[in-house]
């Protein structure tokens, strides 16, 4: 009777019994809806892997919609349901400390996923880190501009000012462009990651700087798309624009040549790895980390920057995306050029 949860309200089943993970529950808690990846990729991949490992187990999926308090509520209710492990992508890395505290006090292990929890060591950490992502997209853009001998400065479109992950990406971007020699013309924290806001802001900068804009570093694909729309609407040539998350829409823009890059995170690998580790914890084992980060046994994976050059291999040949979905209508031509079928 591990899974019923009704009998022991507090949810903790004492120390996790070895073996006997039949009918167990595991919580998979994601932070926001700003990016589609959590619902479209992380969740199904994690669930599929879990199903393979333990057909009778249930995955409790929740999305906190960028609200740390809501995430706390979700953890509490997962605990009340008697989960045996929690995979947590924290909304707020700092605030997640209290979640780890609560869960661990009920002997439920916490696996930090995607974002670290520096203040309170989780039981495991599986990720690629956001700061690195920021640095990678910016560096790729800067290299490209240098190659082209581009003149002018850069615009920086960050994520939401109230989002901790956006802060990390912002830090990474700065680490790449500050020493690059390109002037940072202006930067902007996009409230709620709203593409419309990014568009409005970039439109304003276009009137301000006209043709001094050599490139735009946008922190995700949505804001990148907004930036591109601003250039198109102003009737100006679109400079190289970055992205992040490898959304289908971004892939299409890259194929069409509107967007310069995006970043593909090996979500499949990370999701499956976290499922494996969660399963081990559920069996009562204590998996060892490949490295240690923030006092936490960790396993880190490296994301890949996607540009027109490598989009075919990284996104399509690896099976992350299907050509049939991307190469519709106006994008068919680009696909043909790049040899994507």
């Amino acid at each position, binding site marked *: 009777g591990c899974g019923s949860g009704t009998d022991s309200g507090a949810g903790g089943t004492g120390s996790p019994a070895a073996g006997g993970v039949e009918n167990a529950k595991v919580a998979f808690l994601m932070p926001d809806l700003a990016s589609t990846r959590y619902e479209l990729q992380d969740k199904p991949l994690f669930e599929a892997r879990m199903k393979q490992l333990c057909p009778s187990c249930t995955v409790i999926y929740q999305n906190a919609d960028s609200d740390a308090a809501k995430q706390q509520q979700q953890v509490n*209710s997962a605990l009340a*349901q008697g989960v045996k492990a929690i995979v947590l992508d924290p909304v707020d890395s700092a605030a997640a*400390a209290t979640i780890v505290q609560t869960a661990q006090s009920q002997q439920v292990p916490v696996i930090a996923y995607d974002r670290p929890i520096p203040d309170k060591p989780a039981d495991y950490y599986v990720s690629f880190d956001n700061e690195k992502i920021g640095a990678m997209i910016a560096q790729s853009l800067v290299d490209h501009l240098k190659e082209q001998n581009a003149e002018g400065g850069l615009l920086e479109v960050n994520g939401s000012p*109230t989002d*901790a992950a956006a802060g990390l990406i912002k830090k990474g971007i700065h680490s790449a462009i500050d020493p690059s020699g390109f002037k940072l013309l202006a930067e902007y924290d996009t409230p709620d990651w709203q593409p419309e806001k990014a568009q409005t802001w970039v439109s304003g900068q276009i009137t301000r700087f006209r043709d001094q804009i050599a490139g735009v570093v946008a922190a995700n694909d949505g804001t990148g798309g907004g930036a591109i729309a601003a250039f198109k609407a102003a009737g100006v040539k679109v400079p190289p624009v970055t992205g992040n998350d490898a959304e289908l829409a971004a892939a299409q823009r890259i194929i069409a040549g509107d967007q310069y890059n995006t970043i593909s995170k090996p979500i499949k690998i990370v999701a499956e790895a976290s499922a494996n580790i969660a399963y081990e914890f559920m069996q009562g084992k204590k998996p060892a980390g490949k490295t240690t980060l923030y006092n936490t046994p960790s396993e880190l994976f490296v994301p890949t920057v996607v540009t027109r050059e490598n989009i075919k291999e990284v996104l399509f040949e690896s099976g992350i995306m299907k050509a049939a979905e991307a190469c519709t209508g106006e994008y068919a031509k680009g696909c043909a050029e790049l040899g994507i079928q």
Partner: protein
Amino acid sequence: MVTTDRQDERLQSRVGVRGAITDVIERARGGDLGVIPVAVGLVVIWSVLQALNPVFLSSANLVNLTLESAAVGIIALGIVCVLLVAQIDLSVGSVSGLSGAVLGVLFVLQGLPIWVAITAAVVMGAVIGWLYAQLFNRFGVPSFVITLAGLLAFLGLQLYVLRTRGSINLPFDSGLVHFAQLAFVPAWLSYTLAVLAAAGLFASGYVHARERRKAGLSANSVTMLAVRSAALLAVLVFVVWYLGRTRGVGWMFVLFVGLVLVMHYLLSRTRWGRSVYAVGGNVEAARRAGINVKAVYTSVFVLCSTFAAVGGILAAARLAAVNQSSGGGDVNLNAIAAAVIGGTSLFGGRGTAFSALLGIIVIQSISSGLTLLNLDSSIRFVVTGVVLLLAVVVDSVARKSRTSHGRA
């Protein structure tokens, strides 16, 4: 002998328990049921959610529910006050976030004593409310616009205060965090409080009835009072016992309920409360009655922002952290919605302090119940919307029958 207030021959007379029952039936038909319809809506929601996931009504989950209700519930209490004077405060979320941020900076970064930090945050809330009131009273700017400006400005301030850190953890071993997360009323004390509450109800009712009878007015019979008090006692003891099966009744929830009771007293038993309802019902009439309308507005805005600050502190304590998104998300909407769902009118003059309590419990029940179901975010939003609507339909239908029976 017929009492002074029952002499009109058109009044159907109803005495004793029998009369009370007729009275309730009559009122049900007329739709004059107070909070009962919302409570019925709540029961319906609970039953459905329990049927879908048996964990929902488990003691552990209900304990969580009570703790999660407190912070936003206290904010909603302030919203009830502004709604009663037919104004609105859109900035409670930002103010609560700013208050949390101030607390974090003073307490953690500056290392001041916790009570200094708390006082500073609460005083800041009061000052913000005072500022709103000044703008409102002097320039007559609609409160919607003032507090919309406040929403933006104080969000900005919050970001500014947290700019160096982004997010601040409150230490787990601090009294505040302990209060919000782990402090529960000991069983004996809970039961004592329950008994005291019931006894208090009986005693005050008895004294009141005696006074009324002495003055030649109709009054509740002792039997009625006893039945009511016993019912309250039974409910409270059951709640205490059931929650006590796991962690018990959290002090934070007790604080919330305590504040609701205090506000209920202030609103219904003091001159200030009367003037609040009067200003909400007809501000010109209130002014002509010699009420200092500006003072009433000031008090209400100050109260609302202060409650928002308190709510922000509790939310920070419960999360043991403050960050840039504290007070963001749907804190605003939830606080206002709680007041409205609990039956407070957006047009002023109608509502009680209890609507904050009931409303927030409805909202948190839905949220917690759906958390227990394994739903896609998209479906969850849809279901939340539909359930919310259902919860209020019961109440509205009751009210509707009230107006169609000619009651205003």
